Structure formats: structure tokens, C-alpha cells
């Protein structure tokens, strides 16, 4: 245990160093793959902030991704620099989270999950409908630009920031209070915790990164349309990554994202279409065999601290 605590930060620093020089010798394909991995880490980690910690399952988290993608694409088409546009995407996602969270986080139980599912569908339809702004079903094309390496660093930075934020939150009393909502919301209220305010905070935090990442992904893809940025399967993938790695933990979402993304890339390359079946299989297996995920099981069995 103690030894682990000593070499883990060193290994992490080394890994970050390698990742920060990786684009110098990597192929274009390698950079694209890695930036997607960073994207998934940021998305899974964000979902974990609201759903892993407070237990309020968001079935429409990709709505924030799509919001960020459209905001960024529209701004870039209008001539705004893409990094600035991506930040604006994050801001818009947080605004959206506030608008939907204010009424919906008062709901207890499964209603929040259903409301989020609905939100995503509504946004997708709206993106198709307001053709003047979004290009409707035809989508939006961004001016050509080769920025893979810069997007790689931007994505990496977002993934790192969300993970660092999660670390700070989980090791603080703020994070513990978020967990009390998951554990027993009535008791949390009775112990003086303003659960509604805490849920709103967690929700706003969890919307920021998907908004930025959505914007970066839009810039990277160069073309977006309603079905490509609001797919339900993206939310499901986030959920599976977190459940697989360990919900409510710091490194669980990272672990889940790395393992599942690698697995998916391999399966995708060899057996296209089979990856959805695989995803379904993993959901069933995780729920049945280890509902706490890899890290959750380890923490419970060896009574490890939350920082692991």
C-alpha cells in the first residue's frame, strides 16, 4: 500500500511527460486515436461527477457535448478562433445545465434520468429544425484546418483538468456531501446538507467539460450534423466506462475509458458493427458480476482509501 502511494505519482508524471511529447514522433493516425481517448476520459469523468457521486443518473449527458459542438461550429463558421469557440461551447453547456437542472434536480428518483433523456432528443430535433443557424439536417461544415496536434493538447488538457477536479472534489468534504445524496438523500437533508444546491453545483461542473470537448470534436471532425453530435450511444458509452472502471472513484472513469476505448478500437477494426453487441455484453456483465466496477471492488475488498 505505502509503496504504491510512493511510486504512483512518479509513474503518473512519467506518463504525462510521454504523452506531452508523443505528437513529436507519432503518426497522424496515432494522434487522432489518442485525442479521442482523451475525449472519452473527459466525458466519462464528467458523467461520474454528477451520476457517480450523487447517484442522479444522467441519460442525456451527450446533450452537453452536442451543445458545445454546435456552439463552437457556429462561432467558427462566423470567424471566431476555435479555442475560444470551444470555451464558449463549455459555457453554453453550463448554461444549458442550469436551465434544465433548476427544475429537474428537484425531482427525486428516476425522473431526472428520464428528463435528461428527453432533453437530448429535444435538442437534436431543434438542431434539425433551426436551419438558418444550424444548417438543419444538412449539418455544418467548418473551414478546413489541420489542427490535430493542437486539438490533441487541448483534449488532453481538458481530460487532465476534469480528473484533477475530481481528485480535489472526492478528497474534500464537498465530495463527501455529494456522496451522501447518493447514499441517503433524506438523511443528508436532515444533517443540514442543502442537497438541491449541491446537486446543481455537481451538475454544472459535469456539463462544462462535455461542452468544451464537444467543441473540440466538432473542430476535429470538420463537419457536424444532428445525429453525429447527439447520439444516445455516446451517453451509454460514458455510463459503461464509468460503471466498468468504478463509479464514484477518481481513477475508475479513466481506467474504464482506457480499457473500453482500446477494446472498441480493436473490435471496430476487426469486426465492424460487433462493437455495439460487445458494449451491451459488457453492460450486462458489469451489472451482474461487479456492479461497483473494477476499482469499486478493489476498494471494498482491501479497504483502500478513496484516493486510489
Amino acid at each position, binding site marked *: 500500500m505505502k509503496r504504491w502511494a510512493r511510486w504512483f505519482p512518479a509513474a503518473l508524471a512519467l506518463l504525462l511527460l510521454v504523452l506531452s511529447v508523443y505528437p513529436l514522433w507519432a503518426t497522424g493516425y496515432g494522434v487522432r486515436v489518442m485525442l479521442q481517448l482523451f475525449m472519452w476520459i473527459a466525458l466519462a469523468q464528467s458523467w461520474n461527477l454528477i451520476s457517480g457521486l450523487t447517484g442522479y443518473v444522467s441519460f442525456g449527458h451527450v446533450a452537453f457535448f452536442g451543445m458545445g459542438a454546435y456552439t463552437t461550429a457556429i462561432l467558427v463558421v462566423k470567424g471566431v478562433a476555435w479555442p475560444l469557440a470551444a470555451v464558449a461551447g463549455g459555457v453554453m453547456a453550463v448554461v444549458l445545465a442550469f436551465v434544465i437542472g433548476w427544475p429537474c434536480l428537484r425531482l427525486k428518483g428516476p425522473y431526472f434520468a428520464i428528463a435528461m433523456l428527453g432533453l437530448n432528443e429535444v435538442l437534436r430535433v431543434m438542431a434539425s429544425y433551426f436551419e438558418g443557424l444550424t444548417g438543419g439536417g444538412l449539418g455544418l461544415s467548418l473551414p478546413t484546418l489541420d489542427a490535430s496536434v493542437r486539438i490533441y493538447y487541448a483534449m488532453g488538457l481538458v481530460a487532465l483538468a476534469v480528473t484533477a477536479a475530481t481528485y480535489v472534489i472526492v478528497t474534500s*468534504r464537498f465530495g463527501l456531501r455529494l456522496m451522501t445524496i*447518493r447514499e*441517503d438523500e433524506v438523511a443528508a*437533508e*436532515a*444533517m*443540514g446538507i442543502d442537497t438541491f444546491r449541491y446537486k446543481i453545483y455537481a451538475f454544472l461542473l459535469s456539463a462544462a467539460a462535455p461542452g468544451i470537448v464537444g467543441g473540440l470534436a466538432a473542430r476535429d471532425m470538420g463537419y457536424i450534423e444532428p445525429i453525429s453530435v447527439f447520439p444516445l450511444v455516446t451517453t451509454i458509452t460514458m455510463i459503461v466506462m464509468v460503471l466498468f472502471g468504478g463509479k464514484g472513484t477518481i481513477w475508475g472513469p479513466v481506467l474504464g475509458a482506457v480499457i473500453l476505448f482500446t477494446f472498441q478500437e480493436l473490435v471496430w477494426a476487426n469486426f465492424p458493427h460487433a462493437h455495439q453487441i460487445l458494449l451491451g455484453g459488457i453492460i450486462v456483465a458489469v451489472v451482474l458480476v461487479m456492479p461497483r466496477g473494477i476499482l469499486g471492488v478493489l476498494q471494498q475488498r482491501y479497504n483502500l482509501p478513496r484516493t486510489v
Partner: protein
Amino acid sequence: MAAILQVRNLVKRFGGVTAINGVSLSLEAGKIYGLIGPNGSGKTTLFNCITGIERRDSGAVGFKGRRIDRLKPHQIFHRGLGRTFQIIRVFPELTALENLLVVTTSEFKPARKRAEELLRFVKLETLADEYAGNLSYGQQKLLEFIRVLMSDPDLILLDEPAAGVNRTLLNELLDAVKALRDRGKTIFLVEHDMKVVMGLCETVFVLDHGEKLAEGPPGMIQADERVIEAYFGR
């Protein structure tokens, strides 16, 4: 002495069932009060209405001279009114220590010190880093009891504190309750164990079918014909 808690004509209905039907009572600071009554007589519902977990249909609840019946549970808690639950409600996937740390409003360091003191007080200090869900029933009960003490409330509502706690622990728990009273705290407890109620409480309220049946010192309550009838029938 002024009343710390005042309940006036409280009514709570669940659909067609009137769980609390016009209950009035008043507690003075620095005393231990008991609340007894047969199952389903509305004891827990009364506690829930006082602490804001259930919204009353009519009537008023005043605490330290101010209305609290429109406040949310967390606001009522911050006024200095804490409670425990009949069915244990610790946070199972938080450790015993973390269960205490989430509560208080003070800085982290004094909170940690207080939490450790409280754990020692009920002899749970060796289990501080154990998940609360792994503790025994009695230990969880104790943890919930000290959790409410983290914020040093002026009035504490205890819903069946003795149930499932063994004799040795129980005596310590009762001593702790008396010690709190001696420090000027007010305690209001629901309890089925008559020995506990009679030995501890200065005044006992009896609820039956959502109405206050009797009120008085334990000796008088025990001899009251109506109370005996409510419990055992005619």
C-alpha cells in the same frame, strides 16, 4: 422558562388517513421529553413534520420563538434542531469518520477533532475508517446518534434510540443523553422501552390515532386509564 419548541394544532394527512390530528405540545429547554404511543399512532410522522421532512397540512411549529414549519429540513437543522431516524440512515458507503465529517458547518480541522472525540465517546474509534455499512446494527445506531451531535444542536429528536442496542451500550447511551441535558440541551425521544422512558423522561406525551391522549410525568402516565386502554385495549 420559555418554550424551545412549540407545536400548535398540527395536522398531517396522507390521502384519506389523518396521521396527525390537531396535536399541540410545548417543550421547555433543558429537559428530556418522551413520546409514546401504539404502532401507527403518528410518532414518527410528528417528528417528520417538526424536522421538515414532511410538510404539515395545517398548524404551526415554532422553534426558539420562530416559525419553522415552512423551512426545508437542512434549514431547520441549521437553526439547531437535529434528529436521528427510527430505521437506521447512516451513509453506508462512507466510512464511520466520513459519516461525521459531512455534517458540521465548522472548519475541517475542528470538525475532525470533534468527530474523533465522539467516536471515542461511543468506543467506535477503531472502526473510524470502516465503511458504515459494514458496522453492526447497534454500532450504526450509535454512529447515527453521534452524527447528530456533530453540530451541537439545542434540541435533539431521537427516534427509538434504544432499539437494538445491547444493555451495556444502552446504559452508556442513556448516560450520554443525561449529560446532554445537564449541558442545557433539550431531548425529545420516541421509545418503546418503558424502562428507558420512565427512567429518563421528565414529561411524557402519549399519542393515539394521531391525537394527544395524555401528557404528564411518567408515574402519572403509567397509571392513566386511557393510556393503558390505548395500549392493551379494554
